[in-house]
């Protein structure tokens, strides 16, 4: 709650709704990588706004997950500049390697594959977002290494 209060203090009195996006980011990290209805209702209660004001925002922005995701989420960019550098091949490779389609999570709950639109790393394409950071200049070998890295973290 101290984090939430610090965020609210950034805005003038009575404008605490402005804290909604940052607080949803916090909530998503705290509550298992996605936002369920009780979590969104809780956010509404601490910001003193209606639940619908939270739902309409959470459903608008692509970074909020409204259903469960795997422990590691691969968000691969597929927009023009990445496409020119072979993002389609990377996406196909991850699909085959993990045996899932775009939007799906592996049966062991380890990996989710998402395709996303331009992440502002066009000069370092192809690339994907993984949690807080970007993985750039992707190759099949790099994808293999990243998957191994994730698996070894689990053990």
């Amino acid at each position: 709650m101290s984090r939430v209060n610090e965020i609210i203090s950034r805005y003038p009195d009575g404008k605490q709704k402005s804290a909604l996006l940052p607080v949803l980011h916090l909530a998503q990290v705290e509550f298992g990588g996605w936002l369920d209805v009780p979590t969104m209702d809780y956010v509404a209660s601490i910001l003193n706004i209606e639940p619908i004001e939270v739902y309409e925002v959470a459903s608008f922005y692509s970074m909020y997950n409204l259903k469960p995701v795997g422990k590691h989420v691969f968000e691969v960019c597929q927009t023009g500049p990445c496409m020119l550098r072979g993002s389609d091949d990377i996406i196909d490779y991850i699909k085959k390697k993990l045996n899932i389609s775009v939007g799906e999570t592996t049966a062991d709950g380890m990996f989710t594959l998402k395709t996303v639109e331009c992440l502002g790393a066009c000069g370092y394409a192809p690339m994907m977002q993984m949690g807080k950071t970007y993985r750039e200049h992707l190759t099949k070998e790099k994808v293999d290494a990243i998957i191994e890295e994730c698996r070894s973290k689990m053990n």
Partner: protein
Amino acid sequence: MGRKLLLEKAGVEGIRFFETYRREGGYKSVEKAFKMQPSDIVEEVKKSGLRGRGGAGFPTGMKWSFLAKPEGVPRYLVVNADESEPGTFKDRYLMEFIPHLLIEGMIVSSFALGSNTSYIYIRGEYDWVSDILEEAIIEARQHGWLGKNIQGSGFDCDIHVQRGAGAYICGEETALLESLEGKRGNPRIKPPFPAVKGLWGCPTVVNNVETIAAVVPIINEGGEAYASIGVGKSTGTKLISACGNINKPGVYEIDMTISVEEFIYSEEYCGGIANGKKLKACIPGGSSVPILPANLLLTTAKGEKRMMNYESLSDGGFATGSMMGSGGFIVLDEDQCIVRHTYSLARFYRHESCGQCSPCREGTGWMEKLLLKIESGKGEMSDIDLLWDIQRKIEGNTICPLGDAAAWPVAAAIRHFRDEFEWHVKNPEKCLTQNYGLAHYADPIHVPVQ
């Protein structure tokens, strides 16, 4: 080698941190600004000829002079760091490597505009960049460059970073303000403009990261000195983020006096087309601006060498020219399929349309479907005309410029590459395994020097 005003020190080890940044001459513009009147700072920015670096290219000094100043109402400066235009990654570079330059520019700009609380709205995906900015702000505060009575000037200013959450539309300034207020990023109907009614209904200036960073050299060296760099109404330097099929993708600071050809082929910049291929086409200013075939890219319709500045890039209007836009420079080699590439951009705009205006909400979906149909060899000739018709009906018929941004790439692709679209329709099977190739798109008008 051109003059560098923003990235000159970006390579200095430790420049990310306050001590080094200050030792290298950082925060001097704030000291100078505090000896000036706020209105004089606005005048210097006007004199500099600085144009908004986010894409629209609107004169910054003029934008600042529109700011309403009603008694007793707070005013706000909001920095647009929601860099989302495909092909654009210059602001990220600036914030990641030299974050104090943005903070310094914001203090000077906040002083000029009378903003005591200023915000940086950064795209949510730049999570680690947001951490870098937060650290820089803490350092600046510890050293007395933010907070109450900055350096004894009597001026109070604080800066907060707000992360977005994945929405291209929030780069549009009124959608950004809605988002900063904790709402969906639906652009507002203008007027009123943010300068009169912006954040929480108060007068607000929204400027791009690079624009605010440019205020630092403008104040340090004077508006006239800044204006003396460059050519015509393209003053100062511009960050260009180059990507696609080139040897050296990256962020380059140019002084807008070099030619497009030099920018692509010289070792100092893009280093030529990757893998020894030929240049087919280029989108010079971010995905929204018109794509040009190689011949029109390097030489204007008048037969002049095309230069990397606002006027030359737009020479010929949309018929034969393009735009400087955000400086997102996307290069396509001879192996790229224009239809497929345009489809990928159409998919982007469909995904990013906020859904408020019917022409954009429905039109972007139709354009994506038609382009996929043609690309996958199922198109008919009438689909090309339908595509043209749809983009025309989106342009100019929406609340915000996303509609135009979605329409222009499709229009330019058909305008310059219609034979490639027709080839897809006439060769439904061949187009699945082969590309149309270079055709006449690079025909001389001109042969580039290697």
